């Protein structure tokens, strides 16, 4: 083989390996999670794990029910989404369709900055500002609540929702808009019927990705939600999420104990839920592209 051929051969293989690496890593992570997590189910049933109402991992015998954690995650996520989705979509429309060019650029920069703030910093800011605020406004014993977590997470989901929705709005063909305007529709009427219609798959995908971001977030939420593993009855009480549980307890769980395996099993649950959210988002994104 000529030196040139050899070089081509190596470059080709190197690129191939880089491409395949991500698939291999995902597969390895999943196998590892599964191997460690499944060990738990030798001693405890799947129903008791997912549906158990008590998470006392270090009592004897340990109670490893993650229902309070699942509900905690869902509650915080739902609250965050209720805030971030309407706000995010509205501001995406403002940026894409209404704002004058200079303001548009300023806003886009601000949103990028928001997405660049590390979550631990956001969590810290939330801890010293939002937590006392919530405590005072609602007159409750602690400001470390599900609602506090929802607000912080909404802030973190906003950049994702805004920038992807804005892309979706901008990719609605200009001919639709021109067509509607030429039929005597006002700007607002065009926006409402034609542009929202065209951008809808992208907006849904943006929201799903926002949900994914919120659901998987750990640090900020651990810092402001109080981490009490009880089944939440309202937004104004401390909750603990799936992610925060792993982060907080992995360091102290005895390797090879049921507690240790239970944390891996939580990892599997998280993995499956995040995966489902992302696949749904992808489906909507592709549906938008096909048309």
């Amino acid at each position, binding site marked *: 083989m000529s030196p040139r051929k050899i070089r081509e051969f190596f470059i080709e293989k190197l690129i191939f390996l880089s491409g395949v690496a991500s698939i291999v890593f995902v597969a390895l992570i999943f196998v590892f999670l599964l191997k460690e997590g499944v060990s738990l189910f030798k001693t405890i049933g799947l129903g008791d794990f997912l549906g158990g109402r008590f998470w006392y991992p270090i009592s004897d015998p340990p109670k490893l029910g993650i229902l309070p954690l699942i509900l905690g995650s869902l509650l915080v996520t739902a609250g965050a989404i209720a805030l971030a989705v309407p706000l995010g979509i509205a501001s995406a429309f403002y940026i894409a369709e209404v704002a004058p060019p200079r303001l548009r650029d300023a806003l886009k920069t601000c949103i990028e900055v928001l997405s660049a703030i590390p979550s631990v910093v956001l969590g810290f800011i939330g801890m010293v500002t939002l937590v006392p605020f919530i405590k005072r406004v609602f007159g409750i014993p602690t400001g470390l609540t599900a609602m506090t977590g929802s607000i912080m997470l909404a802030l973190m989901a906003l950049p994702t929702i805004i920038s992807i929705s804005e892309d979706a709005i901008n990719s609605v*063909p200009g*001919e*639709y808009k*021109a*067509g*509607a*305007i*030429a*039929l*005597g*529709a*006002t700007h607002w*009427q065009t926006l409402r*019927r*034609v542009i929202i*219609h*065209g951008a809808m798959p992208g907006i849904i995908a943006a929201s799903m990705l926002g949900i994914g971001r919120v659901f998987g977030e750990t640090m900020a939420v651990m810092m402001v939600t109080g981490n009490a593993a009880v089944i939440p009855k309202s937004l104004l009480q401390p909750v603990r999420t799936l992610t925060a549980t792993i982060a907080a307890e992995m360091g102290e769980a005895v390797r090879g104990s049921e507690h240790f395996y239970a944390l891996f099993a939580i990892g599997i649950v998280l993995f499956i839920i995040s995966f489902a959210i992302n696949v749904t988002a992808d489906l909507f994104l592709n549906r938008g592209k096909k*048309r």
Partner: protein
Amino acid sequence: MTAEAPTPKIEVRDLTVAYGRESALRNLSLDILPNEILSIIGPSNSGKTSFLRALNRMNDLEPRIRTTGTIRLDGADIRRDLAAEDLRKRVGMIFALPNPLPLSIFENIVYGPRRSGVRDKNILAGLVESSLRSAFLWDEVKDRLQSSAFKLSGGQQQRLCIARTLALGPEVILYDEPCSGLDPISTAKVEESMTELRKSQTIVLVTNNTKQAARVGTRTAFFLSGEMVEIGPTDKIFTAPDDKRTEDYIVGRFG
């Protein structure tokens, strides 16, 4: 010329359209007569489309465009006396490429009327049928009004766009190279509908196809580099134009 001049439908006076510093159209004055088909021919960058889009204020959508001069529709200044939305209902536009909305055939046609407040289902259904008939499309789509407009062929989509403009009952229809993407049969159908519509509407047709102007236009104007070189009855423009440049363009020496 012996015919007494009728009151113009649209009077254009000293119209200048500029993109930033470059003017696309300079000091244009002309009258558009009721129930005529005025064809506008000329090479690209001659200002044809800028002129057309000034007539229904579509140029307003592009903030860089500055327009001076006056355009009067039945004597009313379209920029001072009329709201853009009302103007566009009276002066409809057909685009170069068919641009149906991402809705069903039915919804495409009732889009305009709905926005101007028509709610009655019978009236809307009647509008759909009558405007599709006028656009020579009814027989082809009457059994599938609820299917997506994108399922139609290009020629059908263009006739749908004509129908949807007709549903608003416009007085003037602007065609911006409406057949540039269509096959000869579809082109013939669009032209047929134009000739038919002329009975009740005034039509301005911008076209790159001089033969089309010769076929359907009652009068023809020749634009070149932002100015109108010549306007006159189509027969005269095509057989004995006053200006040498018009003749050169028509016989294909440039453009």
